[in-house]
């Protein structure tokens, strides 16, 4: 048992993740053709606008489900919403935010764009601390809006007129997933400007702009879109009860910053915070690159409930970062 743990601790988890992501990408983006159905509570971007999708992003269900009048919201349909949320949470807590790092096809797509950038040898950019703090709020704004707008379509807030039904599923209208997911199965029908009226025009143009930003942004910034993803914000509310966890033992930390400098999301607190045990913050996607980059024994641990399944070790660190070219040196 101890030897198995040692083997895992010294493994190249990132490589495993790359393969896992390919598998998950195929299952979610093309699984529909194979008759796979993972339901409409998926805690990742499985986009129903694509005919090949094997599941449906839970945000779609939230937006449609909330298109309700107050009376029914507090009735049986409200109850149905709650059971829906319950199903989503059950799905989510098993893998926690690893849904983003290992499963979400749009996360994977961005990682591939990063690989493309590396192929060309362009440097990546990072937000400075102040922008990081400001920009991270955007995903919560998206989340609040995608809850409030459907409600405002069926109800009047403070005597204001109801929002037009053209705003139905507002986030989907601007989500780059809606345009890109069909593209992945060769369907270009989502690339359009809807000239029906002003609202549809604005929303469909925004959708196209965000699609362009998705490609350009993620070319220069790792996981560019994840930083603004309302799914990430929704998930984080339930992250604390996650089965899969990432914990930190601050006593073992030297604050060398290796973890934060390899972090695709650019999270600084993983290195600087030596008090919190739970290392998962809202932007974390649980890719566990930080654990791989930590040379301090047992400083960062990946846990299932309370059992360690992957820990930082100095042996593992030097195997991954240090000694691959040792053979050359001894020849010299």
């Amino acid at each position: 048992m101890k030897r198995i743990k040692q083997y895992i601790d010294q493994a190249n988890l990132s490589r495993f993740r790359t393969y896992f992501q390919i598998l998950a990408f195929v299952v979610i983006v093309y699984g529909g053709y194979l008759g796979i159905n993972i339901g409409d509570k998926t805690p990742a971007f499985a986009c129903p606008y694509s005919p090949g999708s094997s599941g449906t992003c839970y945000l779609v269900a939230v937006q449609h489900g909330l298109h309700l009048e107050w009376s029914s919201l507090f009735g049986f349909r409200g109850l149905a919403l709650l059971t829906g949320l319950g199903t989503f949470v059950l799905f989510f807590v098993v893998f926690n935010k690893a849904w983003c790092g290992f499963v979400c096809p749009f996360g994977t797509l961005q990682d591939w764009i990063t690989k493309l950038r590396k192929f060309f040898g362009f440097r990546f950019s990072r937000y400075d601390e102040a922008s990081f703090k400001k920009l991270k709020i955007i995903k919560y704004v998206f989340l609040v809006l995608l809850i409030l707008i459907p409600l405002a379509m069926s109800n009047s807030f403070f005597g204001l007129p109801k929002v037009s039904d053209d705003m139905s599923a507002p986030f989907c209208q601007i989500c780059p997933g809606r345009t890109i997911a069909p593209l992945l199965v060769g369907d270009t029908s989502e690339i359009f400007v809807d000239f029906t009226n002003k609202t549809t025009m604005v929303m469909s143009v925004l959708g196209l702009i965000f699609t362009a930003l998705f490609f350009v942004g993620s070319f220069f910034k790792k996981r560019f879109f994840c930083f603004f993803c309302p799914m990430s914000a929704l998930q984080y509310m339930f992250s604390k009860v996650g089965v899969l966890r990432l914990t930190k033992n601050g006593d073992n930390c030297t604050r060398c910053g290796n973890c934060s400098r390899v972090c695709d999301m650019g999270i600084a607190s993983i290195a600087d915070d030596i008090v919190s045990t739970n290392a998962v913050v809202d932007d974390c996607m649980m890719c566990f690159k930080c654990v791989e980059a930590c040379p301090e024994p047992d400083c960062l641990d990946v846990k299932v409930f309370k059992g360690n399944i992957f820990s930082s070790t100095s042996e593992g660190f030097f195997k991954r970062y240090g000694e691959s070219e040792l053979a050359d040196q001894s020849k010299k």
Partner: protein
Amino acid sequence: MTMINDLDRFERVKKSGSIHYAMEAKKCIADIKDEVHSQLSSMEYFYDIMENIIHEPESSDTEEKVIASMCIHVPVELIYAAGARPVRVCGGAYATDQVGADFLPAKTCPMVKSTAGALYLGLLPGRVKPKLVVNPSSCDQKKKLGEVVSGFDDEFYLLELPPNKDTEESREYWHRVVKRFAKKLESVTGKRITRRNLKKAIKLVSTAQGRYRHFHKLRSQAPVIFGKDAILITNAFFFDDLARWTEKLDELNREMELRIEKKKHVVHENAPRILLTGSPAIFPNLKLPILIEKMGGLVACEEYCSSSRMLTDSIAVDEWFLYDMIPAIADRYLKPSTCPNFSPNEDRIRKILSMIKEFNIDGVVYQSFTGCQLYDMESITVGKAMDEINMPTLYLESDYNPDDSGQLITRVEAFLESVKNK
């Protein structure tokens, strides 16, 4: 006329300096091998190169370019990548300390005086002639040294270390300083730092660090080596060929593993386990560790910049391109450092506390060189932290003068007694 006299005097001083330095080296090794002795056969290599630290090399490689560094904050990976060899020239010899005292203020710390003296006389480890001497602004005395000794043959380069390591501003500043340093190295050596040779350099140093970490871990498992030997090994890292050093350390690690298996310990189980911290022990000034171990203690580990602080932290690169490797190198020399130059320096206290736990320490000996403001100041915060966990701590002020040994013996002896009786 005066010129000739000056030259004459210089030659005389250099000759007597080198003789005294060589004697000190010899005496230090003899003291280490005295009475209590690790008796590890793999240590012979290190005894040998340290004893001959300033011997003229038999065949000098004229092609070899050397960059001298004065501190752990000089990124050696860049130096290797630029086709040169880094040699840390921090001095530990009393002979050169006296020479440095001739042209430096009386209250200068002995390490700076010794380094300056050695640079002046050209008595550097392996008798190297550096193309550039890099002095980081890690303390005021080192910082100003470059100006004071500007008349020397060597070119000095000030590496601007920020006084704080936690803020984004200082990190950015340091990144730029390191980038500029890389450019400077390229112009001095005439060799470009490329993606390939920098990656190779990082791996070379990282391998050495990995082996040192293993060595560190073995020391924590059982008392199979004396601390004085461990300090000697890290002092050899200052100037030895890195691949060879790594190989020799590997041999030693294997010998230590065997000893751990056979339970062949160098001291009794109840020998007080001491942690050394403060101003570093630099060869041949190892009088403190030698003394502690002669009196029946064991230097279980050191939080010195001539030892663990220099070697435990390592680089993680995300994308193996120059644009990520150079910042990664810069980060490694800034963020985990526990140098008292930084304020605040909570990390040093946390490091000491974690070492106390890991190495099961019974007492802490804090050395501060006469004239070393930074370590002196920090003895207060470290002392407070030690009081909080009821850790017996001995504060010592000393320099390179061998005359204070009588007083040191009395204090160390009393301290070890009190630790034993605790």
